[in-house]
């Protein structure tokens, strides 16, 4: 990229007075000595001048009294309730008011996280996880009831029996 191309944007900023002093001086010196950049400067100034002239001329024709009368009329006229409501809603959702979205978003997130805590029914989700089992040498079985997802840990009896009703106990074991 040539120096002129890289300076294109800087010329606009220089004309706007937005360059630091050192850069401003450098651009000014370059524009004074470069035909292309000098032409760029003239084009930008012409655009600005023309637009400014048009709008200034139009605004000069604006009379204050009729404008103020109309503004006063609007102030004094009670607006329909639905227009008031629309304006209130619009002011609430304007950019600065998006700050209200912060607590609203927090509420939503907390509500979402809390969903799991709300019981859908006492037996809706009774799922339990078994992290560890030590049956001290006995056999053990894990069951899960289909509908309620209830976890059942079944401890088998010691074959040699510690209970008097071993036979009964054996018969009463779960049939699975």
């Amino acid at each position: 990229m040539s120096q002129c191309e890289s300076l294109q944007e800087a010329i606009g900023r220089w004309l706007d007075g937005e360059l630091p002093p050192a850069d401003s001086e450098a651009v000014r010196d370059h524009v004074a000595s470069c035909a292309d950049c000098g032409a760029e400067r003239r084009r930008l100034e012409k655009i600005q001048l023309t637009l400014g002239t048009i709008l200034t001329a139009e605004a000069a024709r604006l009379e204050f009294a009729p404008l103020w009368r109309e503004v006063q009329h609007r102030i004094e006229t009670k607006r329909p309730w639905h227009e008031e409501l629309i304006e209130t809603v619009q002011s609430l959702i304007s950019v600065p008011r998006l700050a209200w979205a912060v607590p609203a978003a927090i509420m939503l997130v907390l509500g979402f996280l809390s969903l799991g805590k709300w019981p859908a029914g006492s037996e809706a989700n009774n799922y339990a996880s078994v992290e560890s089992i030590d049956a001290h040498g006995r056999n053990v079985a894990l069951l899960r009831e289909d509908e309620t997802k209830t976890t059942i840990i079944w401890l088998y009896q010691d074959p040699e029996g510690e209970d008097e009703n071993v036979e009964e106990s054996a018969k009463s074991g779960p049939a699975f």
Partner: protein
Amino acid sequence: MLKNLRNPVLLFSLAFLALAGWLHAADSAPQSVLVTVRSIWAGSKGDDFDPKLKGLEQQLKPLKHRSYRALKDETQTIPWQGSKAFEVPGGRSLTVATQEFQNDRIGLKIRLTQGDKPLIDTTVKIANKGNIILGGPAHEGGSLILSISAVAQ
């Protein structure tokens, strides 16, 4: 956009966040757990289902016993990271220790003993307000079944 946040609104948001965090934290860390141990007798004779066990019919279905009878209910409040012993019919004892509470699930360490002899040690995570069934030891011609439920408080 940051510059457009009016100070009072920003303060409100921060205060709200702090409050929401406090409420959520309060909900997340229960002070104690209410544990109920229901001792149930299950037998292969007869066809009786104790009305006191209403609500457990579906849960006990896989066990395929023919009769069920409520023996004893005991409820205790166990402090966070604490433990309590429950008396269980047949000279047994059930010790329940609370471990952790996360995602609305209660971690418990459970030990069933017969006198001094451990029958089973297990670590489980059950749903808050849910239960787990532990059964198998012989009792009075049938089997002993324990329903262990926990509610975070």
